[in-house]
């Protein structure tokens, strides 16, 4: 049995909410907007909890690096069943290389033998932190995991690929990044939500995980809303649809 699984999570804007641009175009207005646990991190946490329930791991530690308000995401993680929670409080979310650095420090501090996290956060859509963390730790990585089994110190991972899948065998310790099919997050009961409110959260300063204030390497210079509107011309029937395709030379001729 392994001792600890680290499940880093991010808090993101609720994906049902359309991101709004600040009037000066300097960023996204998320004040007062609904926030959720990044869906891929929630899947990752669920996978970690199942490993614990299978007797593969002794405990699951959820961790957040973010502003004080991200404590809410940790409460959700505790309500789902995480045994412990760590919050590294920073004013602003650091860039991925520094998040990876902080998570590496946390993984060592917690004695984690496995890190399971989402393949990407649905706000910045970067999807690079898990790989950077694995590189930092010098651990193997299994990205885009769809199935995970841990046995005798080895992770057997079915990974999504550009076409089809790959089956990897990665020795622990390693980093696994969750894709959509890895697990279905459990329903959290109200009783567990209430219990989670009383569970302790370990608070760490940025310095305790080696984070120093640094200039941004990839500053956001400007953001714009993009959605391209199209004509949305309604067609009367299938014949009109075929006529449209024919016009564009996209309908096979000489048949039917």
């Amino acid at each position: 049995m392994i001792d600890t699984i680290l499940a880093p999570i991010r808090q993101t804007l609720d994906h049902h909410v359309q991101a709004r641009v600040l009037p000066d175009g300097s960023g996204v207005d998320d004040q007062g907007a609904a926030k959720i646990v990044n869906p891929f991190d929630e899947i990752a946490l669920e996978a970690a909890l199942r490993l614990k329930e299978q007797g593969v791991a002794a405990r699951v530690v959820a961790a957040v690096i973010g502003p004080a308000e991200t404590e809410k995401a940790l409460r959700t993680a505790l309500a789902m069943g995480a045994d412990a929670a760590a919050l590294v409080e920073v004013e602003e979310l650091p860039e991925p290389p520094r998040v990876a650095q902080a998570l590496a420090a946390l993984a060592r501090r917690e004695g984690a033998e496995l890190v399971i996290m989402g393949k990407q956060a649905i706000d910045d859509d970067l999807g690079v932190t898990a790989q950077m963390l694995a590189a930092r730790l010098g651990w193997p990585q299994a990205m885009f995991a769809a199935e995970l089994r841990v046995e005798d110190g080895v992770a057997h991972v079915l990974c999504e690929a550009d076409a089809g899948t790959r089956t990897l065998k990665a020795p622990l310790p390693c980093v696994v990044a969750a894709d959509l099919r890895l697990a279905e997050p459990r329903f959290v009961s109200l009783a567990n939500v209430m219990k989670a409110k009383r569970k302790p959260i370990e608070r760490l300063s940025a310095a305790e995980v080696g984070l120093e204030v640094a200039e941004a390497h990839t500053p956001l210079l400007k953001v714009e809303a993009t959605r391209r509107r199209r004509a949305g011309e309604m067609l009367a029937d299938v014949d009109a649809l075929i006529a449209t395709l024919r016009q564009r030379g996209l309908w096979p001729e000489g048949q039917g």
Partner: protein
Amino acid sequence: MDVLVLAARDAPGASGALVDEERTARLVAAARRFSGVVDVLLPAAADDGAARMAADGLAALQGVRRVWLAADARLTGWLAEPLAALLADVVRCEGYARIIGDSSLAHRDVLARLAGLLRAPALTDVVDIIDADTVRRPMYAGDILATVGIRSELAVLLLRAVAFAPAEKIAEEAAVEVVVPEMPGNLPCPVELLEEEAGDSSGRPDLGRARIVLGMGRGAMDTESRALLLQLAEKLGAAVAATRAVVDEGLAPNDWQVGQTGKQIAPALYIAFGISGAHQHLAGIADAETIIAVNTDADAPIFAAADHGLAMDARKALKALLAELGEHVPDE
């Protein structure tokens, strides 16, 4: 600013080729905007005929100075640990300032790890290179287009290849040198690749390259509609895409998923069957030239994102289209 391009990987089993030359040509053309030398690295399991042929093809791309043919059995299957370690070695020795790849899963796996090894930032889904230190990329499922500065000497950029026109091929005699780098003895190989399953495309074109793509959404989420959609795809020579809901339901494999967390496509025509138009899905089809939506719900948001709409049951529409093509379809 000197650039190293990682050759785009061809889907295993698709054509037996080592490299997706067309996609690599797009990366090379984009890399030339950094006005330095452009070298391409091609990983291969061995220095054999197939590897040489692939390398020669890349050497003929306009703007390429050198092709590194990294031939080593340890690079089989593009496992991230050895390949990223090798790339880090090459980048440090040659002093490249930008490392460019595409936004495929294969490249995300390897190149974000490389960025981790180099302590460099990595930006994915880059759709525009404004100058050597400024790029644009979508965020928030494509709701937002961000202009991002690069304030570091080294950076890894993963491009959406379809957003860049491909570099041309120049005459063979102008082709540049192919160099086999000396392989480090200590490449880390902790992970074993047990199996690489190519997935079942039944001869359909690749989603990223197909001229026509048929999309399957919640309103076409039954086995009959699925069969009709595949039949129509075959007649039109189209690829097939699905929304997350359909993948979740197990009616489509993961590699059909198009959207924020799936693939981004740019076909000449996208026909959305029974797709409501959640912005997560729209993020993947924004670059389609023409979008046609078929959905029973005339108020579905997909119609605002489409060029043409047809308010009709997806299954009925599929049947009517197939009948028009002389295909036998069961009666209602």
